């Protein structure tokens, strides 16, 4: 079983991020469980979400204490995210403009820049979860077509196509990093 924990601020879209990766994983035949943090969700407050992906039925109902992967949407949350637990051989994907030193293998993706460059901004809020969907999908081996399918089911028409295009940039960026 693969466990991923997402950290962001309320409104940055981690719940949707986890949900889309879950939907895409289902299309590969996996069992999934996605769960937002057990908190009162408020815009701007630190929030968590978890995603479990398995080839067998998932019986876990507890919080995700030591995930295989941490996905952190804001550098300010990195220290606290690590402090809350990660597997010894865990790895981290961080939305940040430059590579940082870290105790764990850390990959920085500038999702904010991708979202702004691609004009995926509504009310001055860039949709950083969209490029990150692609990046994480690559990292956990979800074929891009499955993610694209999930995105186009969630958002009908042009919005879906546009989101899928931006998610692909995240997917490619991660692919580059892993070469």
């Amino acid at each position, binding site marked *: 079983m693969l466990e991923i924990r997402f950290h962001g601020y309320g409104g940055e879209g981690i719940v949707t991020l986890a*949900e889309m990766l*879950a*939907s895409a994983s*289902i299309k590969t035949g996996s*069992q*999934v*469980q*996605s*769960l*937002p943090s*057990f908190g*009162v969700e408020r815009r701007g407050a630190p929030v968590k979400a978890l995603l479990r992906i398995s080839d067998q039925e*998932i*019986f*876990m*109902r*507890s*919080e995700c*204490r030591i995930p295989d992967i941490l996905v952190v949407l804001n550098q300010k949350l990195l220290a606290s995210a690590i402090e809350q637990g990660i597997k010894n051989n865990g790895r981290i994907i961080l939305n940040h403009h430059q590579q940082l030193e870290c105790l764990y293998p850390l990959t920085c993706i500038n999702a904010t820049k991708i979202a702004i460059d691609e004009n995926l901004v509504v009310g001055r809020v860039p949709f950083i979860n969209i490029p990150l969907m692609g990046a994480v999908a690559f990292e956990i081996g979800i074929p891009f077509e499955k993610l694209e399918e999930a995105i186009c089911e969630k958002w009908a028409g042009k919005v879906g196509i546009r989101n899928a295009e931006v998610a692909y940039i995240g997917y490619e960026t991660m692919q580059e990093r892993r070469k």
Partner: protein
Amino acid sequence: MRRLFDTGCHVVAQAVKCADVDMVAAYPITPQTSVVEEIAALTESGEMNCRFLPVEGEHSAMAACVAAAAVGARAFTATSSQGLLYMHEVLHMASGCRFPLVMVNVNRAVFAPWTLWADHSDSLAQRDTGWLQLYCASLQEVFNTILQAYYIAERVRIPVMVNMDGFILSHCRMIVEMPDQQVIDKYLQHQPNGWIADPQNPSAYACVTGADLYPGFREELFNDTKNADKTIIEAAKVYHELTGMWDGDLIDTYRCDDADTFIIAIGSMAAEARISVDLLREQGIKAGLIKIRALRPFPAAAISDVLSDGARVMVLDRNYGFGTEGGIIFAELKAALFERAAQLQIANKIMGIGGADVNYQMMADAVTSAWDFRR
């Protein structure tokens, strides 16, 4: 089979839609809110052919359900915590009038202090209202159990409360297989009603009843609640025959055949406890799990049949039985197994209060710290 990937709250709404419910009256409360929102949206769009009554509180929600059931409608409500407590008085009315209502309670701890997260204090406080109580460990079980609840309620004419842990299940997304509608329709054919109020021919029901008649009604409810176990078993069996799906009947068991050490759990803890059992088995402990599905009627005989002589029994309670030795299920179980007291070692651990995280390691630790297995 159709496949759904959605939150627990939305799975409830889909099950209610599949059950072809005629009337839903409900008031929103965290963490049940999106059950109400989704049913309101489905009825508004016409996707669900049902009357939705947005009432001003839970007391009225249950009163409206009682009235709908009185004229023969299939009714539903959902609530949580304080909402369920607020309903308390009308819960007695529903069971006393023998209305086949189904309610989903999204388990949440109770005030004070304020909290939003799961434990079982809300539903256990309604233990003696004459309702049947079923508890679920997965979203698939929530879906299946709502349908089974109508099957049961309409046969025994006692209302059924289906419980699911707040946030842990209500806000979790998992895959749920939905049987085809014609299969569900076959399973849930409307049962002939015991009595239906006819607005064209007004008459009075459940009026002031003296000590000549009142005890008889209560005794009948008492006996029928006890005997409802057969219908709960039948509901699970027939559902299994039609859909192939099985979550247990009064209880469900895991690796109990050769077990001498048992975990007894309820709700979402009963899913993760399977992993605790595997972990204990790896340590050489012959562990097994008994998941309690039906708390009312209490499955005393079903549990006793599984327990071998000399067994160690760890009861996990997500509640406090104030003024007793521990949790409410612990007290219930000890009373139920009183005659086997000399053959069993029953221990208790209270965990998960107010949404406190419960994982498989903690449940396994509860077992290994209660008894010395090194001997």
